[in-house]
């Protein structure tokens, strides 16, 4: 049978997916063990035991300076910033995208502005944000918002604008006003696309969060990684990175599930 026709079953698929990950972990362990055989104090490739020990301290022992369990405090601070940024961006994308997509005059007026903002590299605006908003939480959340909103707005606007013309005409012949077209025809159909846009924006949102935390912060996952880097504490950096990856995957899966649950009509005929 040709490869293009070989569709692995669910269990086989899971197994296949696990193979590269397991291999990667094995390679790491072998390299780490070899290095430790030569130099027992090697910091670059920490062994799992060292990672568990370091992380145990950060998770379960209060930091003598701040009195907090650092790992959880970092996680909470980062998720707060990320969540706030995502909520603001999503709301803005839905609102602006919908209006731009449905109303041609508004699109003509503000479309070029949105495109213009979207091409500015957000990190280039970080100094502006720090100067304008100070070094507090606002600037970090603002970086996430500025970083991901324009792309999401453009995605929603173009999706809504490309809804089949027949649907809009049909709605008008049923007596719908512009407003009614917006809330009953465009809005519900934009929702699954919005969730999709949020899923795609999660990656960049994490990038902007870590960048902002790395540059000016005193708490947060990104801050911690860049702080312990000075002591070559790979035993903290690697678990932190893995934790960030896990959080991102959980969010992505949760959003995908939400979309399927809330908008079954958008996910194929069999619901």
């Amino acid at each position: 049978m040709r490869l293009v026709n070989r569709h692995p079953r669910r269990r086989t698929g899971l197994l296949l997916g696990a193979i590269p990950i397991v291999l990667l972990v094995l390679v790491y362990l072998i390299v780490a063990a070899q290095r430790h055989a030569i130099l027992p104090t090697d910091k670059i490739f920490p062994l799992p035991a060292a990672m568990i020990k370091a992380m145990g301290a950060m998770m379960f022992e209060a930091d003598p300076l701040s009195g907090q369990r650092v790992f959880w405090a970092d996680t909470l601070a980062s998720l707060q910033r990320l969540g706030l940024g995502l909520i603001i961006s999503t709301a803005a994308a839905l609102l602006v995208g919908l209006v731009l997509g449905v109303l041609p005059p508004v699109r003509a007026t503000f479309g070029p502005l949105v495109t213009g903002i979207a091409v500015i590299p957000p990190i280039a605006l970080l100094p502006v944000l720090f100067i304008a908003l100070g070094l507090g939480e606002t600037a970090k959340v603002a970086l996430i918002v500025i970083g991901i909103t324009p792309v999401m707005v453009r995605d929603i606007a173009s999706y809504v604008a490309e809804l089949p013309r027949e649907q809009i005409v049909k709605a008008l012949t049923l007596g719908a006003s512009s407003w009614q077209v917006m809330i009953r025809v465009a809005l519900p159909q934009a929702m699954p696309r919005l969730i999709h846009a949020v899923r795609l924006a999660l990656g960049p949102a994490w990038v902007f969060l870590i960048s902002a935390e790395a540059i000016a912060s005193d708490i947060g996952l990104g801050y911690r990684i860049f702080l312990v880097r000075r002591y070559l504490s790979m035993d903290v950096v690697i678990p932190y990175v893995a934790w960030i990856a896990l959080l991102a995957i959980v969010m992505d899966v949760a959003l995908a599930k939400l979309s399927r649950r809330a908008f079954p009509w958008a996910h194929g005929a069999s619901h």
Partner: protein
Amino acid sequence: MSAPETSGPILCLKDVWVEYGDKIVLEKVDLAIEEGSFVSIIGPSGAGKSSLLRLILGQEAPSRGTISLDGAPLTPECGPDRGVVFQRYSVFPHLTALANVVFGLECEKAPLLARLFGSAKAEATARATEMLEAVGLGDSLHLYPAQMSGGMQQRLAIAQALIKRPRVLLLDEPFGALDPGIRADMHALIKRLWRDYSLTIVMVTHDLREAFSLGTRVLALDKRRHDPHAPHRFGATAVYDLALRKDDEAAEPEAAQAPVEESA
């Protein structure tokens, strides 16, 4: 139940032209459509059949000439006095069959939320259910369009349009994408609805048999003149306008029977 033949034309086109730049699509179309008639529009591709439909629909304005509906000039905007069924994309994928039909009632009665509640909702639901039963979708009220066959989707699109009791129902190749068997069911259905609701229907079609078997009048659009060096400089107009005598009550009583239900 037949439409009063004495009233004047419901829809009137006078010297209508459609031009895009120097490309002429329709030229000098004069047309008067009587209330209660079933007009089939045929013609080769690119002869402006769909343009004519868009004009009547109000999706587009003529570059010259006037169109009037019930004696009043038509505004170039779609409105609830003209219903439409397209070949595809006529129903809202995010709404169930019932919600698709109720939508038209909600738009009218709830300008702000476009949703009805309480007894108003119950009444609208009852009306929509009745309409869906009339098109043979009484068992599929809560299905989404994606769960329906092509024929069922077109039935839904018709029910959705008819709930607004439009003055004119426009059909743009409504059965073009359906299997022959299902198409026959749909012909029977549309004929029955046309009679029961005294509709005025304008249908664009590629299918000559369909045009003649359904229509009380067949319009053929084509270019009268053709310049081989500048084919775009002459537009199409009605080259044939045939009034068909229909002895419908006597001839086809079986067409009024309930249509055969097809499954998803």
